């Protein structure tokens, strides 16, 4: 974990598309911690001038150790946003900063978990987990110890010499999560990591992710199209609407942690879900 000096007073960037009220609602503790991610007027257009505008002047920031969920329907540009943050594609306009440095290409201090586990079938569980260590030449001996620790954390002790095809979907996704954490990144980007799992496994993985997050306190940007998943996991939620992709609402979730699955029946929980839906409907997100 890297601690940054406090950003200038009122360092949180303005969000043109959200109401003033939303901005004021942000918890002060997050303000003080300094921003890991700062996104200002970020735009992305595919193709030439008449191309599709995937992102339109998106503004937000993510504080140290904060869990931000981005919710939106398919095609709202949330995966584009994540790819820009991961340095996989360039933005067309605006800036994206990671620890105050512009993201101009892939960076070693970012961990990414994709929608599918993306495991290499010729590598064992341990081999897959150590892939970032191999790519970044961090030394296998040292990292193996860390890998075993993390595998234990996600309940995969004893599976390190199995191969991906011998694991269930949920187990594969845990391996992918450990791989994203192995090089101790400053930022964890997750693109609908549980989207391909069945509903029950998905809930279990949400509980698990919260537990891991509470233990490690990584800064997380979590993309999902599930409103319940977003409210359950996030400190703050950004709601995105499509055509062009923009942030329609941004608000904190004030539910005590650790949250159990019972929280879903809580009245406040329902209120947050309704707020997301309202923003989506107003933005024409759900037809």
């Amino acid at each position, binding site marked *: 974990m890297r601690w940054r000096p406090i950003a200038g007073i009122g360092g949180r960037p303005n969000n043109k598309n959200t109401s003033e009220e939303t901005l004021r609602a942000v918890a002060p503790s997050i303000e003080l911690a300094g921003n890991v991610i700062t996104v200002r007027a970020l735009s992305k257009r595919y193709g030439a001038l008449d191309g599709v505008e995937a992102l339109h002047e998106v503004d937000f920031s993510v504080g140290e150790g904060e869990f931000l969920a981005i919710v939106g329907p398919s095609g709202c540009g949330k995966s584009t946003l994540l790819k820009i943050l991961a340095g*996989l594609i360039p933005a067309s306009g605006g800036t994206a900063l990671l620890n105050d440095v512009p993201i101009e290409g*892939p960076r070693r201090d970012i961990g990414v978990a994709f929608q599918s586990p993306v495991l290499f079938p010729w590598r064992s569980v341990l081999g897959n987990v150590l892939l970032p260590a191999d790519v970044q030449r961090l030394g296998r001996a040292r990292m193996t110890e860390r890998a075993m620790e993390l595998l234990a954390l996600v309940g995969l002790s004893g599976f390190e010499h199995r191969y991906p095809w011998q694991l269930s979907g949920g187990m594969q996704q845990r391996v992918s999560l450990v791989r994203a954490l192995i090089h101790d990144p400053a930022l964890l980007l997750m693109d609908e990591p549980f989207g391909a799992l069945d509903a029950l496994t998905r809930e279990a993985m949400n509980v698990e992710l919260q537990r891991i997050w509470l233990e490690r306190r990584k800064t997380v940007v979590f993309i999902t199209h599930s409103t319940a998943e977003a409210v359950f996991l996030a400190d703050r939620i950004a709601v995105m609407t499509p055509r062009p992709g923009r942030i329609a609402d941004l608000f904190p979730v004030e539910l005590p942690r650790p949250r159990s699955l019972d929280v879903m029946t809580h009245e406040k929980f329902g209120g947050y879900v309704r707020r997301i839906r309202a923003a989506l409907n107003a933005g024409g997100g759900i037809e």
Partner: protein
Amino acid sequence: MTRMTGGLVNFVLRLMLIAVTLAVWEALVRLLDVPAFILPTPSSIFTALYRGIASALYLNHIGITLAETLIGFVVGTVLAFALGIAVALSRSIEYFLYPFIVMFQAMPKVALAPLIIVWFGLGLTSKVVNAALVAFFPLMVNTIVGLRSAEEEKVDLMRSLAASRWQVFWMLRLPNAMPYIFAGLEIAMIFALIGAIVAEFVGAQSGLGMLIQSMNFTMDVAGQFSVLLILSVLGLILNGMVNGVRRRVLFWDVSQKVDAVASAQKKGGTL
């Protein structure tokens, strides 16, 4: 246990079917008095096989054809692998080589055998060259297709880790291409044998192909059948060798990519 005895019963049935086929063949040829230069009896084929092996005549020719095939296979596949990598990695190499590749792919490579005999003589070299030429294309095509078949998600993952182009190649593209490469090697091995035999047909002093032709001139049809039998056993052994290595290397390939073989036969399959 039931499965095992069932397997045994099936095995015995299979052997019996072969025995019955041979018996019917033998009986029909004798009953209908088919001339030996049209269709010999199985018994005369096995006699010819036994004589050939006992007199060490066949062994010499087997050794020569096998050497031509294996050297041709190694030369052809090493070149094909290297060129396949170059084409897959460099757009400009692909751009300039493409017309040549397309022209050669469409051409029946065995039709070059007479020319190759003229250029490289009647000895071992011309057979090796022909075998290598025929073995070359299926592996090259499969190497290119295999190296380009890595899923975009996996490439994105490697890139998100700030992997270099070289690392993407070694850690992702090459292992990912192995099922295609082995499918190509399997075809290349059989093609190399075919290439060696055809070159021997055109002009040779020894080898199983030459033996078949000289037997043809003397109407020794039983002898030809016995050499054909040897060739199919040889083909099985060579194929088994590649398969054995493949099973060890590709233990992780659950699908065993059967479709890769089919596509390779379609694309690089012209002899």
